[in-house]
C-alpha cells in the first residue's frame, strides 16, 4: 500500500492492516496518536524521556496485541490504557523511593501555586500542584478513561484510596483551573 491511502485511511482500517502485519499502517497510527499518549504520560508525572520510553513500549505492546483490539472504543483510548498501565507498573516500582522526595516538591509547588491561583493556568501546570498519587489517579480516570475501580486495580490500591486521591486532586484542580467558581462538594461523575 502506498503512503497516500494509509494517510487517508480510517483508524479501524489501519488497525486491520496492522493486524495483518502492516507496519506502515501501524506507523500511521503512531503518527496520529503518539502525541496524545505522550501527553497523557507526562500528565501522569513522567518526565519527557520516561514518557517517550513508555509511550514507545506501549505502541510496541499495542502492535503485538492488536488482534485483541475489538474497536469497542477508539484506538487512541485503547493505547492510552496500555500506556497508563505500563507507566503505573513502573511508578509503583519506583514510588517507594521517589514518593517522599516528590511529595515534598509538590508541597513547595502547592504553596507557589496558591499565590497565583487568581490566574487561570493550563492543565499541565495545574497538575503539578497535585501529589504524585493524586496526579496518577486523576489522570487515569479523566485522561486514561478508567473507572475508579479500574484505576484501583491497575494501581493495586483499595478503591476508597483511589476515590480519596481523585477527590483531593479534583479539589486542587478546581481551585487552579476555575478559581472563584463554586462547584460545590458533589460526588465525582467517574464511577467505580
Amino acid at each position: 500500500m502506498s503512503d497516500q491511502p494509509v494517510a487517508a485511511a480510517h483508524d479501524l482500517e489501519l488497525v486491520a492492516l496492522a493486524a495483518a502485519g502492516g507496519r506502515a499502517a501501524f506507523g500511521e497510527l503512531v503518527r496520529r496518536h503518539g502525541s496524545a499518549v505522550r501527553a497523557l504520560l507526562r500528565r501522569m508525572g513522567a518526565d519527557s524521556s520516561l514518557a517517550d520510553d513508555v509511550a514507545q513500549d506501549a505502541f510496541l505492546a499495542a502492535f503485538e496485541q492488536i488482534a485483541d483490539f475489538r474497536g469497542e472504543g477508539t484506538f487512541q483510548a485503547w493505547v492510552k490504557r496500555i500506556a497508563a498501565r505500563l507507566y503505573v507498573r513502573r511508578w509503583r516500582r519506583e514510588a517507594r523511593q521517589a514518593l517522599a522526595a516528590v511529595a515534598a516538591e509538590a508541597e513547595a509547588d502547592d504553596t507557589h501555586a496558591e499565590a497565583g491561583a487568581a490566574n487561570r493556568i493550563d492543565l499541565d501546570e495545574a497538575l503539578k500542584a497535585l501529589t504524585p498519587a493524586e496526579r496518577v489517579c486523576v489522570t487515569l480516570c479523566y485522561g486514561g478513561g478508567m473507572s475508579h475501580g479500574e484505576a484501583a486495580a491497575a494501581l493495586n490500591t483499595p478503591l476508597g484510596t483511589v476515590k480519596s486521591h481523585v477527590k483531593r486532586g479534583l479539589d486542587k484542580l478546581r481551585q487552579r483551573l476555575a478559581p472563584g467558581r463554586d462547584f460545590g462538594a458533589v460526588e465525582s461523575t467517574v464511577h467505580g
Partner: protein
Amino acid sequence: MAEFMFERELERMFAEAPAFPDAQLFAVQVEERLARGWTFRRFLIGGLGAVGGVIGGAQLLGSGVLSRAGELTAASQHYAAAQVAQLLPTNLTPSGFPLGEALWMSAALALVAVGLALTRAIREI
C-alpha cells in the same frame, strides 16, 4: 451539576494533546524499534532452526539411519522398479535415472516444501 460540568471540562482538557514538535521523530523511532524486533525475531527463529537442524542431522547420521535406509532402498529398488515399470508406459520411464534416486529426490523436495510452509507459518505468527 457544576461538578459534572467541571469534570466534563477536565476530560476535554485531557483529550487536548499538545502538538509535539518531534512527533514525526517519535513515530520513526517506534517504527525502527518495530523493525528491529522483527529482525531479531527472524534471526532468532533462523538461528534456532539452524541449531536444531545441525543437532537433528548429527543425530540422524550418528544413529546410522542413512546407511540403513540405503540398504532398504537397494533391497526394494528392484521390486519397486518392477512394479512401477508395470504401471508406466515404457516411454515415460526416465532412462539412466535410477528409481531409488528419484525417490530420494522426491523426499528431499517434500522436505523443502515443508520447510517453506513452516517459514510461511512462522511469518504469519
